[in-house]
């Protein structure tokens, strides 16, 4: 059996170093723990379905987990949904703990996890929501039509995000949302290969 691997791109390594440079320890934890909870959710679902995680990749676009085996459409959907579900659970727990202990960084972490989970549920590849949509639409409509639907949905969601981000930028609220929209516009993949392979983010 092929051994599982961890890949970290140069871009991801530089981004991590930049975060270590800029953020305090608590801020770093506030950011890392939600991401860890999210990915652990995916991993737990993969293992629960008796599948083998093959590769964990970290890049500038985010994290992705590649797994071997075919648990069927519902299994793939469950694996994709497990990440945001774990993130929401973490958000609730961190919020409770943060407010009861007076640790503001935990409340920040809860907010980050909430944002991350909801964002990942957007129906746009390569996000988890896009994965769910691609699996369900491929099962319902066939791969070709399913891929087309996913592409249209992705472009629509990305365009709306970019437009909202543009408005926020013009109002002096920063470029973050605009950059996210542009990232989704050009960063998504809707090839049949991705729908077939077990890759989730």
């Amino acid at each position, binding site marked *: 059996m092929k051994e599982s691997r*961890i890949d970290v791109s140069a871009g991801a390594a530089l981004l991590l170093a930049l975060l270590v440079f800029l953020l305090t320890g608590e801020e770093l934890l506030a950011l890392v723990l939600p991401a860890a909870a999210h990915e652990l959710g995916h991993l737990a679902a993969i293992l629960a379905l008796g599948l083998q995680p093959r590769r964990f990749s970290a890049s500038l676009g985010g994290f992705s987990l590649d797994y071997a085996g075919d648990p069927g459409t519902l299994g793939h959907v469950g694996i994709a949904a497990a990440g945001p579900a774990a993130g929401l659970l973490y958000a609730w727990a961190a919020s409770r703990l943060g407010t009861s202990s007076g640790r503001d960084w935990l409340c920040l972490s809860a*907010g980050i996890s909430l944002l991350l989970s909801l964002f990942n549920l957007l129906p746009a590849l390569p996000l988890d929501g896009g994965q769910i949509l691609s699996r369900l639409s491929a099962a319902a409509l066939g791969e070709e039509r399913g891929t087309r639907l996913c592409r249209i949905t992705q472009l629509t969601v990305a365009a709306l995000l970019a437009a909202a981000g543009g408005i926020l930028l013009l109002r002096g609220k920063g470029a*973050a949302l605009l950059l996210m929209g542009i990232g989704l516009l050009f960063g998504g993949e809707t090839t049949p290969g991705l729908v077939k392979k077990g890759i989730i983010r």
Partner: protein
Amino acid sequence: MRMQKTRALWLAALILLAALLRLLLPGTVKTLRAWAEESLAPGVEETVAAWGRALAGQEERVQALHREGGP
């Protein structure tokens, strides 16, 4: 899960270097943070933390309703 040893060492060294530079260049850290926050998402940290606190607030409100015999 296995990561190439060489790459793992490089990553560890990069992170240590970043941590060291953070200690040595506090002024640069402050300037960069201010610029990043202003250009990417001014005030977002407070907003996101408020959402995080609100999660607990919602839970407490629901529990208070249950104690009062509400829906």
